[in-house]
Structures are given as structure tokens and as C-alpha cells.
């Protein structure tokens, strides 16, 4: 990828839609610094009150799993059905 002196760094944007809601990934913006990143994120992802809270994170700082991980990386969870409540027999009782 080309990169020259004047390329503004990339930031990932997370928005909180309402009080108590989790922050969710909304997209990304280019910005020179934190403040500009927050302002750009507001202008791009919350022009209609879609957010009451914003996080911006330098894209480089995000560590992600890869599609190839899909099987082996997550399979420790596959054989542990007892982590779910419906694994258990509770004859007659109401919960």
C-alpha cells in the first residue's frame, strides 16, 4: 500500500446508540490526531443522533482473528454443551 507523508492515519469508530447500550463498530475515518478523529467520527457516523457516545481507536492498535482461525481457534467451545442452561434436566421445576 502506498503511504506518503501526507496520508492521514486510519481510526476505527465505535458508537454507543443509547444509554446502557454496548459500543459497536460503525466504520472508520482518516484523521491526523485524536481530536480530529473524534470530530470526523461525529460528522460521519452521527449526523442524525445515531450515537450518544463515540470511541475512536487507531486501526493499527486492533488485533483481529483471521478467517482461517474460524475452526481451530474457536473449537475449545464446541464440546462444552454444559455451558448452556438447556444442557440440564430440571424435571417439573419452574425457573
Amino acid at each position: 500500500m502506498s503511504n506518503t507523508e501526507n496520508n492521514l492515519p486510519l481510526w476505527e469508530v465505535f458508537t454507543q446508540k443509547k444509554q446502557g447500550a454496548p459500543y459497536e463498530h460503525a466504520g472508520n475515518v482518516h484523521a491526523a490526531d485524536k481530536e480530529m478523529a473524534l470530530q470526523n467520527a461525529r460528522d460521519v457516523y452521527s449526523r442524525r443522533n445515531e450515537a450518544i457516545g463515540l470511541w475512536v481507536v487507531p486501526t493499527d492498535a486492533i488485533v483481529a482473528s483471521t478467517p482461517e482461525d474460524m475452526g481451530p481457534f474457536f473449537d475449545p467451545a464446541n464440546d462444552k454443551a454444559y455451558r448452556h442452561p438447556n444442557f440440564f434436566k430440571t424435571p417439573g421445576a419452574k425457573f
Partner: protein
Amino acid sequence: MDDQQRELHFNERIARGEVIEPKDWMPERYRKQLIRMMSQHAHSEVVGMLPEGNWITRAPSLRRKAVLLAKVQDEAGHGLYIYSGVETLGISREELYNEFLEGRAKYSSIFNYPTLTWADMGAIGWLVDGAAIVNQTVLAKGSYGPYARAMVRICKEENFHHKQGYEILATLMKGTKEQQEMAQDSINRFWWPSLMMFGPPDKESPNSADLLRWKVKLYSNDELRQRFIDRTVPQAENIGLKIPDPLLKWNAEKDHYDHGDINWEEFYNVIKGNGICNKERMKARREAHENGAWVREAALAYARKQEKVPMEA
């Protein structure tokens, strides 16, 4: 797995209706076609600000001015959503801009028509954004995740654009004779170019087969064009506007409108750069980019001074 097996697997995923994400394996042609199509779309959103920006200072009331400003700002946002999406395919924002500014990437031919009167703000919102909605609603169900998600977001906002345009025309059609004529004149100029927005007829569309096979597009250009016409004609009749097509006629048997031939020569001519405003639009974009260079430099210099700036890899 070799590439042939990967492609087989990829095609199966597409057939099952799965969504392709940036890190997933994809055929090089899929990636290239998406970059071409999405960047063209992003550039169109950005250039699309120019014909309407032309009227911001001359909007007839504060209400109209605030609305137009908000709409133009949305178009900038739409460009950014799609640029973000294209970047996931491994091309940088800067490369995308350069392709565009050097004239190597296209944008929608509709924006090479001038906006001569206030009524054109109505025609653009109603017809141009109306056509865009028909296109984008379907693209929102396409196979590439980042593109489809950008379209969902855009479609939500586009409905405001569409209705504000219609309101402008409806108001003019209730006005003086001059205002009615102004509205009709605008439709006369924008109707055919709006139909061209769906791209060349199916039999002459070189990229359609691939895009349909990969479910980036779900309907052909002609199908979407027909959908737009069927939807739009009654809206025109509702406020007394005449569609400038003497051959336009409801066909009860087909359950569609028949329409006259589109002047494709004009379409190709505009794409080649010979439209009324091609040079002006490119000049405006180049100047905006060049005149903004010092701002980008200053912002970066300031950020570096503050240190701990995350640098792009």
C-alpha cells in the same frame, strides 16, 4: 488448497448467499471489479456535491438552504462510507483519490449536467436520488459485506434526499406559471440522464455478467431502470409534471411502462469526457484537493508535535 479449489469454495459460498468479508479469500477479478465499481460509486457521491453546492447560496428560503446543506453534507458522508469500504480491498484512500483526480476512475455521468435553475435541486433529489435508491436498495443485499453495509446506511439517509426534492417540485407546481414551467423544464432536462444512471443496456454492459454471478448486483441494469420508471411516473402525474417521452405508455399486459429509446450515444459521449460540465467538475475536485493540501500538512505537523501519533502501516 490451490486457487482453483479456493475459487470453487468461494463460488459455493456465494451460491449459499454467504457474505464475503475483507479477509476472506476472493478471486482477483472479484476484488478488481469491486474496487472499480465501489470507487466509481464513492467518486460519484463526492462529485455529486458540486451541482447542488452550486445552489446553496441561492436557496429561496432559510429552510431550503438548511435542507440543501444537510443533503450535501450527507453526500460527503456517503462518499466516506464507500471509500472506507473500498479500502478494505487493499487499496489506500490516497490511491483512490489519485486515480480519480488523474482521470483514471469514472463517476456517474449524471453529475456532468449543469444545474441551471432552483427547480434542478428538486429534479436531482427526486430523480437522481430516486434512481440511486433503486440501485442502492439492491446493492445493500450484495455479497461483499463492507459494500452492502455502507449501502444500508446510505439508503436510510437517501429517502430524505428523495422526498425533499419532490417537495421542491410539488411546491413549484402549485406556484405561478413561470414556476411550473421551471419545474417542467428541469424534468425535461433531467429525465433521460436519470435513466442513463442505471448504466448501459444489458446487451452492452461488459461487467454485468460477472457482477450478477458474484451477487454484487442482483438485478440487471434494464430491470432496475424499469423499476425506477414504474415507480416514478405516477409520482410525476400526481403533481402534474409531464415525462418528456412521447412513447411512454402503461402496458397492462406486461404490468410495466413502455418507454422510448434512450440516447446511448449521448451517454457514451458524456462518459468519454464530453459532457457539459466534465471539465468543470474535475477542475473543482482537483482544486479542492490541492487547496486542502496545506490543511492536511498542518494537521499532521500538529499531531506529530503532540507525539504518540499512530502512523499508518
